[in-house]
């Protein structure tokens, strides 16, 4: 997958990278990301999940990480393709950051020590 991921798609992939999670858990994790608090609502979340399912980047999981969990909850997990897409996005962000750091703008924003 060469196209950049949307912010919401990237953060959903990050949220399910380590283990399968349900919608509310994913929302909680996204809310904790810097600059993402309140940016992904329930509709946006499931529209993004639908898109990721269609692209084969996440799958719906039958496993229940916590026994006795509400059976109506749906869990989603990352696929191999999803992992590759997230890694490609991380690399893209690294390159952008490196390019930004190389400009004078990044230096100007660095706070200087007062003597």
């Amino acid at each position, binding site marked *: 997958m060469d196209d950049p991921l949307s912010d919401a798609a990237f953060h959903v992939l990050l949220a399910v990278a380590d283990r399968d999670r*349900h*919608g*509310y858990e994913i*929302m909680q994790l996204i809310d904790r990301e810097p600059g993402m608090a*309140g940016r992904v*609502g*329930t*509709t*946006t*979340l*499931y*529209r993004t*999940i*639908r898109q990721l399912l269609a692209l084969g980047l996440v799958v719906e999981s039958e496993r229940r990480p916590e026994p006795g969990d*509400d059976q*109506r*909850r*749906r869990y989603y997990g990352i696929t191999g393709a999803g992992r590759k897409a997230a890694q490609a996005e991380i690399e893209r962000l690294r390159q952008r950051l490196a390019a930004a750091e190389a400009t004078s703008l990044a230096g100007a924003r660095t706070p200087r020590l007062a003597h």
Partner: protein
Amino acid sequence: MDVRAVHASSRVYAALLWFLPVAFRREFAEPMRQTFADLTAARVADAGPRGMVGVWRRALPDLVGGAALEWAGTVARAARGSTSWPRYAGAALAVAAAGLLLLSQALYPANLRRPEYLWAYAGLLAALTGVALVLWRMRGSSTAAVSLGLAICPLWPLMYTTVPAAPVALSAVGVLIAAAGGRVVARGGRLTAGLSASLVCALTGAVGLLLSNETYSLSTMGALRHDSGYLAEYLHSGQTDLAAYIVGESVGGGIYAILASPVLGVALGLLGAVIGRIVRATRRADTVTRAPR
């Protein structure tokens, strides 16, 4: 905060999910409702009623925006994958015109006491029903025929202007109707298919005229009441209700257009078919001449 309030909030949210397209709703309504319920319970536990307000302030714009985007995507996919939209578009135009006719009579009913108007309106409603059925069922309701018919609509206002715009607009209407049939025949279609396409084009254009007339008269009723030209014609007509007179006049043009459109469609369709045959014959001759020996 009361647990029942949290449940009630989830039920309201679940009801609002009906605004989403069916396919999306079938797949995700239940997990969305569950996620919303989890979110509400957590926020209410943290911040009480303010938490509930916060959840809704976030959920509503997200739901409205998401539903709009989902519908836009659904409609775009349907339009790309289906060839039936022209049939629905033409029929919907006729139904909308009939709806506006009924609305105009409900708002300004004075004409309904006059038998000649009553018969004309009943006839027009019947004609519009027939037109809707023809546009819906007819094979000629192709994308090109309906699009050419819709292209006629912006030309109607020019008909009410003076030389040279009016005759140019009239000629353009004729060209569009003939072109609808001509292109079918030029591409190897039969004469009946060409006539059918021209008929659909003419009917769509006529319904467009009626619809624009009705919309114009209903939306500018206040201004027309002070139009000296209209007032003079109204006084000359001997009618007693100005609003009903304006509505009646606006519908009148549409009635003539609807009555004339089948005749125009067939006549101009024949002309288009003749031109289409010539174009096809010329293309064939050209192909034979260029064929390698």
